[in-house]
Structure formats: C-alpha cells, structure tokens
C-alpha cells in the first residue's frame, strides 16, 4: 500500500476529491462559512491521520498542485481586465482606498502582534492576510512565514469580513455602493467579495478590483520594507 501513497496521483486525487466535496457542501447549504478550502483541509488531514499516511507522501502529488498556484495567480489579471472600464472610471478613489487599506492592514498587524506578544514567525505569516490567498502565499514564503498559517489567517480574515461588513456599513452609514465594495474587497478579499456580489453588481465588481489593487500595493509595501 505504501507504494500507492507514494504515487503523485494519490495527493492529486485526494485534493481534488475533498475539494469537490467542499464545493458541493458550500453550494448545497449556500453558506460562506462552509469554505471549500477548510472542508478539504479537514478531510485530507483526517484521511492522512486515519490511514497513518505521512504528510510527505501526500505532498508528492500535492507539490504538483501547489505549482499551479503560479499560473492561477497570472490569471487574476483576466479577472481585473473584464472590470477595466470601472477601474479606469474610479481609478483615484480605488488607488487611494486600497493603498490606505493595505497600509492600515500591515501596520495594525505589526502593532497588535507586539501588543499580544505574538511570535515573530506568526507575525510574518499574518502580515499578508488581507490579500487574496495566491498573493498571500507568495509573500509568506518571501517573508519566511509559515504558509499553512497564512492560509488560515487569510480565510479567517475573510470570515470576519462576512460577519462584520453588514454591521460596519450600518454603523458608519455607508450608502455609496462603490465605498461598500472597496472596503469589503480591501479588508476581506475573495471571501468578502462573495458577500459583496450578493449586495449588488457594483459592490461585487468594486470588491473584485480592490482584491487586485490591494494585492499589488501590499506586495510593493512588504517587499520595500
């Protein structure tokens, strides 16, 4: 049996199967908290534990899939390209909003981490948490954080956005759909965007643009320092 688990196909099959289950549950119950990545992660870990299969065997095929994060990141350009007219129209508010958001995200992580005595490696894993996972992972390894913790931080941050965005919009009386979308996308990336799309087409589009711009600004800020 060990031979079977050593095959790269094992990791690939397990990842795709569990992710499909995650996608199905997410659609079936229409809840953003049934995140496919979380469901797949829990299922994979459970199966590896029960079968007493070492993580290294899973990663033989897993590494092949991680490699595909690269072209997937390249494809984010296509997602922005289809929103180009809107990006051009509101270029200045978008750029300023996302830059301020990215700066606040990074500085607040540094401040709060110091305040709560978070370890250095954890802080490095938390720094890119406001950007979409593809970019966050790249930054995490660049900063020598722990990528698995970064994935968790990114998803958690998305959940915070879903939970609190409607409340914050009420408290601050934000009526402009452009502001709503940009604030959601900048603070809670793709997961928040799923919520923004339900609020309206302008919120959804703005949130999608914010993911891209915030990602690029965050890379520049973190690389520069």
């Amino acid at each position, binding site marked *: 049996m060990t031979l079977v688990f050593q095959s790269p196909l094992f990791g690939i099959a397990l990842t795709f199967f569990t992710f499909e289950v995650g996608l199905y549950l997410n659609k079936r119950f229409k809840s953003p908290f049934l995140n496919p990545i979380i469901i*797949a992660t829990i299922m994979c870990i459970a199966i590896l534990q029960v079968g007493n299969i070492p993580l290294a065997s899973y990663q033989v095929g897993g590494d092949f899939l991680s490699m595909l994060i690269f072209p997937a990141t390249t494809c984010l350009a296509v997602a922005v390209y289809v929103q180009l007219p809107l990006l051009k129209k509101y270029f200045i508010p978008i750029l300023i909003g996302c830059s301020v958001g990215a700066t606040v995200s990074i500085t607040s992580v540094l401040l709060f981490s110091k305040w709560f005595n978070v370890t250095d490696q954890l802080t490095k894993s938390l720094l890119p948490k406001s950007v979409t996972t593809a970019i966050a*992972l790249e930054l995490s390894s660049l900063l020598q954080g722990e990528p698995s*913790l970064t994935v968790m931080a990114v998803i958690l941050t998305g959940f915070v956005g879903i939970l609190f965005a409607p409340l914050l919009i009420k408290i601050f009386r934000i009526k402009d759909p452009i502001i709503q979308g940009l604030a959601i996308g900048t*603070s809670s990336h793709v997961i928040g965007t799923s919520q923004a799309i339900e609020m309206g087409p302008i919120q959804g589009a703005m949130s999608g643009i914010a993911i891209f711009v915030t990602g690029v600004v965050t890379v520049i800020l973190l690389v520069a320092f």
Partner: protein
Amino acid sequence: MKILGQLTLLATLGVLGIMLAQLLPFPFPGSIMSMLLLLLLMIFQIIKLHHIKQASEFFLHYMGAFFVVPSVAIMENTGLLQGQVVPFLLVCMLSALLTFAATALAVKITISLLYKKEVQS
C-alpha cells in the same frame, strides 16, 4: 485558441515574469510580475480575452483546490500555534475591522473631494 496553446501562453508568461522579477534590485514574486505583464498585454490588445479564456476560467474557478495543499501542512505546524491561538484570532479580527473602516473613510473623503464640484453645480 486550443487549450494546449493557452497553457503554453500561461507558462511562457510565467517564465517571463520570473525573468523580469529577477531584473529588479529587490526580491519580487515572479507570479505577481507575470500577472502584471498579462494585464498590460491585454490592455494593449496584444493578448486578447479569447486567447486565454478557457484556461483562465479553469484556473480562476478551481484556484482554491491548489491552496488545500499548503493548508494541509498545518498538521505538522500546530506547535507554532501553541499558546498563540487567541492572539492569532484577535490580530486577524481587529486588523480586518480597522482595515475596513480605514478604506471606507479614505474612499469617502476622496470621492467627496473629487466630485464636490459636480454635486454643487
């Protein structure tokens, strides 16, 4: 364009991205560089949407599956979270709320400054 052609295009953009990133004087992710490169080439209509449509739809739709792999590695990194779970959650939450508020405020001020004249006239 057929799917193999689209994948070739993506792989080539990736290689170019890595090469361009290495020209910079500081470490910069090649994937982000290839993303910016693709956007530029699309804006200048050198690469058109139909050149890359099917491949990009696949990658954008199933991107999450690729993140499962680094995420599963958490099973061997639980030690890093020892005694840090609550701070970890707090930092995530507080920082996200602050980011939301700051972005909303910044956009609000910018829009009111930019479009003030239009509203008045």
